[in-house]
């Protein structure tokens, strides 16, 4: 089956729109337990995708997602508690606050390379947690309690989470299929070469950092509404950063659907389903990570794509060129692979 160039170009966006619409509509029919689980999964998806844009496409391996979750969560919560703003305005303020943080930190962070960037972002997350812990106006270590009746819950909160996750997915699709994404990948793969070809390195990295921060902050606001009580130990916990890395790496960093799979495997499969056996869950998580790093360093999703193409691809002797080596997925820059792995 061949697709027209227009369909070929737009079908991922159409699929995302359809999936978003279906998920949004489910907010009216699912039970409270599933809706709550959905909110958690969608928030993790948004955070993991934001990390994926930065690290998977831009090569900026961040350990600071927690700082943006906390900034978004606290911005929304403090505005609600101290100014009495309505929740939509509080939600709108969350990405703005997170972007401001990203902008503020970019001057220092974007000068760092490789491991130094990662350590720098981790230090910021830890420092921000300590700052909040000692900030009395933000409730100090005991945190802030949101007015339960003034924040969305149940189906409404789920639908907000759907929109946030959809926005994160849309940004990832853009990074995957746009010229901007190609330039970002060029910086990731060989920064001096990209700079030599005229790519504005700092400007492109900033252009990845700002929306990634905004999406993470937006997810932080949704998490604050879900948790109702937020404290430095909850929304500013470094575990948000670690989970973002784990989910994107397990699923497949630098792909569109990898983090989605990672969230399903890590949160739903390991954390949630094995929550009555936490030790076992931790052990499996560790083994899984080691196995992935050893046997599928690109993550589970690219592995599944290769396996599928191997199963569906031409048989030996069919006379058609073999398309099942998986090499394209590993080496080709984003946007240049065949349609079969278009969402990868």
């Amino acid at each position, binding site marked *: 089956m061949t697709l*027209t160039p*227009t*369909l070929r170009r*737009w079908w991922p966006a159409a699929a995302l*729109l*359809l999936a978003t*619409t*279906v998920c*949004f*509509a*489910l*907010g*009216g*029919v*699912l*039970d*409270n*337990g*599933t*809706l*709550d*689980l959905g909110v*958690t999964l969608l928030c993790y998806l948004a955070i993991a995708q934001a990390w994926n844009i930065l690290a998977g496409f831009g090569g900026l391996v961040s350990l600071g997602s927690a700082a943006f979750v906390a900034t978004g969560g606290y911005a929304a919560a403090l505005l609600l508690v101290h100014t009495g703003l309505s929740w939509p305005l509080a939600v709108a303020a969350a990405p703005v606050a997170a972007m401001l943080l990203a902008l503020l930190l970019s001057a220092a962070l974007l000068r760092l390379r490789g491991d130094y960037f990662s350590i720098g972002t981790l230090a910021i997350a830890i420092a921000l947690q*300590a700052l909040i*812990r*000692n900030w009395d106006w933000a409730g*100090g*270590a*005991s*945190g802030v*309690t949101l007015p*339960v009746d003034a924040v969305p*819950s*149940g*189906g*409404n909160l789920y*639908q907000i989470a759907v929109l946030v996750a959809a926005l994160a997915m849309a940004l990832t699709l853009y990074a995957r299929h746009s010229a901007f994404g190609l330039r970002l990948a060029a910086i990731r793969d060989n920064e001096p070469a990209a700079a030599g070809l005229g790519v504005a390195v700092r400007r492109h990295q900033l252009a990845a950092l700002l929306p990634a921060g905004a999406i993470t902050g937006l997810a932080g606001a949704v998490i604050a509404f*879900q*948790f*109702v*009580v937020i*404290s430095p*130990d*909850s929304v500013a*916990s470094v*575990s*948000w950063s670690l989970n973002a890395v784990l989910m994107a790496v397990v699923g497949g960093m630098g792909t569109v659907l990898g983090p989605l799979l990672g969230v399903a495997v890590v949160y739903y499969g390991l*954390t*949630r389903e094995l*929550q*009555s056996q*936490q*030790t076992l869950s*931790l052990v499996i998580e560790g083994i899984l990570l080691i196995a992935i790093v050893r046997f599928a360093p690109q993550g589970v999703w690219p592995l599944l794509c290769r396996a599928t193409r191997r199963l569906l691809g031409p048989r030996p002797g069919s006379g058609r060129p073999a398309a099942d080596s998986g090499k394209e997925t590993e080496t080709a820059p984003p946007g240049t692979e065949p349609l079969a792995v278009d969402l990868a």
Partner: protein
Amino acid sequence: MRTLRPSLRLACATVCAALLVAGCAGNDTSSAGSANSTGPIVIGTSISLSGNTVLASIKDGYQLAVDKANAAGGVTVGGVKRKIKLVVLDNRSDTNTMVQQVRSLVLSDHAVALLGSCCQQNIDMQGQADALKTPLMMGALPVELLPKGKGYTWDSFQSLADGADKFYELADTTSTNKKILVVTSNDAQGKSTGQLWAGLGKKNGYTIASTKAVPTGTTDFSDVIQSGKSTGAQVLIASMAPQDCFAMWKQMKALAYKPKLAIGLQCAQTPGWSSLGTLGDGTLVQLNWTDSAGLPDTQMIVDKFAKKYPALNDLGSVALGYHEAQVLMNAISRSGDATAASVNKALAATDMTSALGPVKFTANKSTTPSFIGQWENGRIQQVWPAKGAVPLKSLAGLR
């Protein structure tokens, strides 16, 4: 999208609109709970069983009470005997995990009520109880520290003020210069504890030489210790997480700070204190239970758990868990229908005697008796009140 025919576009738009309308319609699906049935009644807890804090003894207390009730055929609700199903989830000492687990217990497992964890996590859990409109019966949080919530959290535990009064009565029996160094964690529990104990110290004729609040996880206490030494404080009141107290006690020894009396609130109550060896000897603790106070069910708890938990404070934690679950199940049996709302109402009307003594709530709090114990050779012995107590010894570990 120019390749799509207008009719196909219209169809797509209609489907999207229909789905959106369905989505915006809201839902009336609510937790079915275990009300109005004859099946088991689910109660749940997200408790720290690994990580920084291990509360296995409290969990054993919960299980003991539930097993005892189920062995008797269950709890009588509206004239029908119903079994209790206790769902215990380990939150690995992580607040995020705790919040997510509590929500899943109520929304997915349909727990009609919750049992608490410990300390700061209990405060974080209160918000979830309020948001989910599900009663939370807790201990392990001194009654003064329970924040004002929306009425779904019930705290039956000892009072800091009661413990402080007993400590100062005890301190008066030994010779000190009455100068106090107060060191607490900078979280809500630590700060409130510090203020309350310092205030009562002044009332009892003591001088607050220095007050320090440190973040949880502090490893360098040299400035705190220096402040104790420079002010000559001979009484030390510490309210911190166990690992922080461990670090501070070791550094006190290294820097030769030798107070005459030291009490470790929260930290010295944990079983890990015995791992300090002789360094921990002489440290005082506030206890919620002793085996010599004549409290109900003492012998049963000792018989069942003395081998597993030789230390008095661990047995006290078993008693605490047993007490919490007893109070909750008593309310469930009086609720008539075992729904969250009616259990919450029943908790307000609690008037019973549990393993920690009489329980009757006022403003969602019920104070249980306090005792002062002292570590000696890896064990705690009651040193105050005098009835059933052994004589106070010196703070040998730091000398």
